[in-house]
């Protein structure tokens, strides 16, 4: 009896590991970054785009805007493509084909982000440079690569949402004379909408947090982009590019950049969780 109680306590402690890690991450990122935000002032930090850390300017507005634009761009490609795959796999494709296609598409998740970035540099960037102009390394290149990278997230969560719609709905609709597409469009998609929105939100989180691929294809220039062919530097690439050599206030500024990113991600995660719970 005594042993059982002890085991239960140990297991409970193990179960706290993920929450503890999350708490530690939050505490350390804020502890390292917050002093700088207080030092420069929130306004000069997030509403200025003057980033010259060695001279004491720590404005990250350009990076916030770039991160948001790159993420939106990724969604323009990733959402239709991902939803199309999910609808085909969950509704149209014969079971035997789905059995092959689903694990095949999941392989996209296994390709390392550095490989995506590398192929972006080799294939996509020259195409953009030659046919659309500009340096090639650009907001557009980053959006396209991220649009592909978010596919596994969007596809797998949307499929789960579509499969969870009861078959009776489909049968009822078909029995009323609707075509299969009408059924998908008017019955299945509306019934699965909260799951699909969750998929999109988590895909956004994935895109805004991606680092290595973006560093390789986005060009990393420090300004607010005026065209999709402009090179951009996102919040994530700013951290990764400079952490290697930053010291003192400069390093704190990178952690402060991390705080902004962390808050954005947590808001996205929280809304996804709330959506799922309501269902």
């Amino acid at each position, binding site marked *: 009896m005594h042993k*059982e109680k002890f*085991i*239960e306590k140990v297991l*409970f402690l*193990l*179960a706290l*590991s*993920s*929450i503890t*890690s*999350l708490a*530690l*991450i939050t505490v*350390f*990122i804020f502890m390292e970054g917050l002093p700088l935000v207080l030092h420069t002032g929130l306004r000069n930090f997030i509403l200025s785009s003057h980033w010259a850390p060695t001279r004491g300017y720590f404005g990250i507005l350009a990076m916030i805007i770039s991160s948001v634009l790159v993420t939106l761009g990724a969604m323009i490609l990733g959402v239709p*493509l991902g939803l*199309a*795959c999910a*609808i*085909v*796999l969950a509704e*149209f494709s014969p079971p035997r084909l789905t059995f092959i296609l689903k*694990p095949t*598409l*999941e*392989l996209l998740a*296994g*390709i*390392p*982000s*550095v*490989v*995506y970035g*590398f192929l972006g*540099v080799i*294939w996509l960037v020259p195409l953009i440079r030659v046919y659309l102009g500009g340096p090639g390394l650009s907001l557009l290149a980053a959006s396209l690569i991220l649009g*592909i990278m978010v*596919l596994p997230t969007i596809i797998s969560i949307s499929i789960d949402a579509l499969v969870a719609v009861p078959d009776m709905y489909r049968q009822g609709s078909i029995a009323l004379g609707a*075509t*299969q*597409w009408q059924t998908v*469009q008017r019955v299945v998609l509306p019934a699965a909408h909260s799951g699909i929105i969750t998929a999109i939100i*988590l895909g956004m*989180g994935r895109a805004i*947090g*991606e680092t290595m691929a973006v*560093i*390789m294809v986005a060009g990393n220039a420090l300004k607010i982009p005026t065209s999709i062919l402009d090179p951009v530097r996102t919040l*994530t690439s700013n951290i*990764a590019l400079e*952490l*290697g050599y930053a010291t003192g206030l400069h390093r704190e500024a*990178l952690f402060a950049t*991390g705080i902004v*990113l962390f808050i954005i*991600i947590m808001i*996205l*995660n929280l809304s*996804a*969780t709330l959506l799922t719970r309501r269902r």
Partner: protein
Amino acid sequence: MRLNPNISQFVMKSLLWLMTGFTIFILIFIIINVSVKGLPQVTPAFLLEEPHDMGRAGGIFSTIVATAYITLVAILLATPLGVGTAIYLTEYTREGRVTRMIRFGAECLAGVPSIILGLFGFVLFVLKLGLGWCVLSGGLTLAIMVLPIIIRTSEEAIKAVPQEYRQVCFSLGLSQWQTVTRVVLPSALPGITTGVMLSVGRSLGETAVLLFTAGAGLRLPTSLFDSGRTMAVHFYILAREGISMPNAYGTAAILMISILIINLTAYSLMQRFLRRHT
């Protein structure tokens, strides 16, 4: 004017199939491109020789060892934590506030981007605990990264074990813990293995975390406190600094193909396991 439903169905179905085909085309393009350019570089010498001249010449032996070493540390740390969490959630409590909180923590942790984990590992393990850029710092940070994967898959696997198994155990007078260790865990083992394999796959491809926790030292790591450059980090440095394209492709090919094989095996293992129990 309303379009004929049969025509619009035909148009939409074709469009959606076309988009799915395009996605599969991208995947195949990536795999073939990297394999065709990379596999010719992969010779026994490439795998077993140390890199020379920053990776311009020689092989990638030390990066393979570093990758294996760091991944092993991460898995050894994360597996007991993750499986323990899953056992607690499924066998020892009822659904309630506590389980919801734990699951929420795991979900949020899964959403934390790798660069944030890199920052965290850098400040806590490398700087505050004074471990420096090393295999241990990298492994510890990676363990946190893969923890949610192990929790989720183990939980799914343990839940798939039929309730009758447990009832039989209790009726024979076994304690809760005996039931878990002698019956539930052995039956859930294929599912748990899937989680561990997916974690290995995720660790192999990770770059941002390791760049700032394990460093980029090219020497063969011999202890937990040596810096180690993993294959993914090596590939990133070779490609980004234009050191050697053939060696970059070779590294990428080995990396990608091993991850794909691991993920496919994990997937089929889980499918077979779930089919047996449902």
